[in-house]
């Protein structure tokens, strides 16, 4: 097999050419200068950190966002789609990150949804199945069109979504947004093979992924965006994971040097913890006065790890020791009693009861301390809430304000304030800074460091290497359900973290 860029690139004009495309939202420039070209029959990887402008650019190509400047040409013709339907007419289709299938319909019905072959008003099931098979053929997969969508494996769901995009219109450019992010390694392989087969059949595939090992394996060419600009674009030939990491960060990252905290006794020990699917045998130890960082990509099992520890998800195998006593299987109520608290990554769905007041949300996990004989004292609750509002600088109309009326950062302070109210010794923080402003973020860093100094123990889960390097004492990387060996923060760098997570 020859390199397609060199073999075909010389003879064919580029199929897709993006030239100095820009897009601003108000004063914020989401995309400043995106420039690259892609040809028929290639897998073109599009990479960038969160906020690099990736989604904006893909949105422009898919007709969901209109650009302010720059030009896009498709097959030599000016291309500026006004809507997703318009983009499909030009032959550009996007498959979103999360597969969206109607679980109660079968594969053929899902693939032909909205374009059902009919005769005198009745759906021709056999024709639908034939078209479904035809759409899946270029992927090199054979999925029975009569199977129900709910019976499919995650990889098959992703493949059916791609097949549906192919069946709905004549596709020339297919955009895949992190198609393997929620798949296991073996399942990801299947999707990658299909992506390769698709490109070999002559399509241009724009492939978005954070898993750099995957990109190196499947892509022919790449474009790296940083701060809204194309920093590098070219052939994948000879490019290694480490090269991509450095391009993404823009610099070989350096670790911050920080004063070590005094480490106390061991408060939590997890051995070979295994859940129903994830984690898959994770182990670590946590000491008083320590902030332990867990870095991992989406689907690596970091959230499942703390959920299993906290008793929210079922533990299949392994051990959890709190202090010196074994207590593997548990409930949240029991964990609370043992001095463990958790902040959920899903702030609106799980972390907070949005229709309840700030005071209720702050005190809900330990109403005992503000009530007597089963009656909650409004005064005690108000006092407890006001103390925390002052201490955490929560901006709200008062303890009685519904927590849903607060900004994201202040909501998160309420979620963390609850752990302070229950006086937790071990704080499991799952992506505590997700989607909050920089000011609140800095306050949470300071608060955590302050808590650790007061001999609390913290598990801090994050997808942001810089944040972990700033607050943690030790960091371990989670990959496919297993936690790697923890290392001192001084032994890590952004590059090392990304490399180990994506390896």
């Amino acid at each position, binding site marked *: 097999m020859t390199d397609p860029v060199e073999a075909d690139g010389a003879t064919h004009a580029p199929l897709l050419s993006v030239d100095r495309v820009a897009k601003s939202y108000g004063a914020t420039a989401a995309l400043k200068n995106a420039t690259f070209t892609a040809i028929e029959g290639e897998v073109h990887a599009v990479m960038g950190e969160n906020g690099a402008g990736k989604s904006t650019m893909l949105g422009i190509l898919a007709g969901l966002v209109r650009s302010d400047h720059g030009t896009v040409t498709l097959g030599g013709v000016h291309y500026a789609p006004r809507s997703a339907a318009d983009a499909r007419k030009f032959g550009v289709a996007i498959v979103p990150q999360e597969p969206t299938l109607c679980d109660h319909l079968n594969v053929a019905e899902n693939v032909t949804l909205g374009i059902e072959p009919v005769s005198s008003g009745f759906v021709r099931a056999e024709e639908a199945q034939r078209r479904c098979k035809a759409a899946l053929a270029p992927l090199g997969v054979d999925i029975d069109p009569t199977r129900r969508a709910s019976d499919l494996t995650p990889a098959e769901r992703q493949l059916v979504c791609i097949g549906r995009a192919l069946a709905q219109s004549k596709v020339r450019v297919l955009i895949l947004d992190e198609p393997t992010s929620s798949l296991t390694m073996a399942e990801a392989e299947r999707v990658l093979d299909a992506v390769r087969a698709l490109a070999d059949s002559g399509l241009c595939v724009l492939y978005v992924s954070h898993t750099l090992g995957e990109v190196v394996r499947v892509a022919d060419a790449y474009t790296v965006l940083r701060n809204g600009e194309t920093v590098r674009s070219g052939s994948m030939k000879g490019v290694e994971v480490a090269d991509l990491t450095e391009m993404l960060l823009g610099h070989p990252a350096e670790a911050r040097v920080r004063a070590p905290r005094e480490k106390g006794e061991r408060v939590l020990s997890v051995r070979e913890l295994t859940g129903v699917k994830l984690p898959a045998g994770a182990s670590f130890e946590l000491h008083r006065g320590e902030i332990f960082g867990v870095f991992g990509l989406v689907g690596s099992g970091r959230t499942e790890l703390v959920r299993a520890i906290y008793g929210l998800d079922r533990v299949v195998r392994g051990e959890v020791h709190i202090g010196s006593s074994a207590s593997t299987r548990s409930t949240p*109520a*029991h964990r609370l*009693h043992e001095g463990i608290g958790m902040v959920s990554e899903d702030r609106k769905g799980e972390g907070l009861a*949005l229709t309840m007041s700030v005071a209720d949300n702050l005190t*809900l*996990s330990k*109403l005992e301390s503000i009530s007597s004989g*089963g009656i*909650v004292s*409004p005064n005690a609750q108000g006092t407890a809430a006001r103390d925390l509002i002052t201490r955490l600088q929560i901006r709200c109309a008062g303890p009685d304000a519904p927590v849903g009326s607060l900004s994201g950062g202040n909501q998160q302070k309420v979620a963390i304030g609850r752990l302070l109210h229950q006086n937790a010794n071990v704080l499991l923080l799952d992506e505590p800074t997700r989607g909050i402003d920089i000011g609140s973020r800095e306050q949470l860093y300071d608060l955590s460091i302050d808590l650790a100094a007061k001999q609390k123990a913290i598990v801090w889960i994050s997808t942001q290497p810089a944040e972990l390097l700033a607050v943690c004492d030790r960091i371990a990387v989670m990959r496919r359900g297993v936690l790697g060996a923890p290392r001192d923060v001084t032994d890590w760098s952004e590059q090392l973290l990304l490399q180990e997570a994506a390896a």
Partner: protein
Amino acid sequence: MTEAKPTEAKATEASAMSSRLRRVLGEPWIGPLVALLVVYAMFAVVTPDTFLRGVALEMMARHTVVVAFCSVGMTLVIIQGGIDLSVGSVVALVTVVTASLLRSGYSPAVAALGAVLAGALCGALNGALVAGLKITPFIVTLGTMSALRGLAKGFAGEQKIDADAGALEKLMLRDPDSALPFPPGVFLAIVVALFGAALLAYSRFGRHIVATGSSPATARLCGISIPRVTIVTYTLAGLLAGIAGMMEFSTLTVGDPTDSIGLELEVIAAVVIGGGSLFGGQGSVAGSVLGAMLMTVIATGATHVGIANWIQEILTGAIIVVAVTVDRMRHR
């Protein structure tokens, strides 16, 4: 504050007043209260000679008692995120149980205890099924609605059971010589409603009910046992339906297995008019009881004015939809 100039003091006083006023106006029961007063005033103007007399008031209070007891329980269930379609069947079953106990020679006190217990057992069954089978409450209580109705008919041998109500009859009958304007059942309903409102507002368990309905995931995260909250809430609702059944028996003085068909919809309507959300987490006992009263006033008033039954039904339906629409708009 002592240094403050009179005008400033007045201004802060006024702003404190307005914020308090805004808070009161934000209460969920304000809407149904206003609606009730407006509708009552309307009928009072049209038919002053009947509507302004104490007799009419007493009759309307009596008519509301059964729905009011049930709606206190339903409020708890709906705030918890559930629903109970079986209340009508429970009330019918309880009238049968009460009549049977009395006919077997038990004292009215024992019969009353049996009534409440039977209701609580039905509620516990609902709660255990919802919590244990993890099936939506709508389906579970749709099932028990039919099953308990069947049980009542089987227990009664598919006929009404006559019994000497004895002291139980006095629950819903005003002593003409008494200085009190209402029969004891009405006062009991008021006490129970106050108790229910206090439970929701001030007890730890009340917070757990609201939290479970507002966000089950958050409740779980905070160590609240959702099965326990579910079972206790449905049991309480059943117990209140038991008391309602006892009141119904006091009015009918027979045990009737075919009684109270469709009561559950009236009760749900009362809760919804009172600001309860079928998505859980929202509602108030005061609002629900006012909703129940509103429906009684409309039915009574319409009858007095001579509006046909079918128009009354259309009116009630319209009020349910309008009440919820207005409530949504207020919260926007």
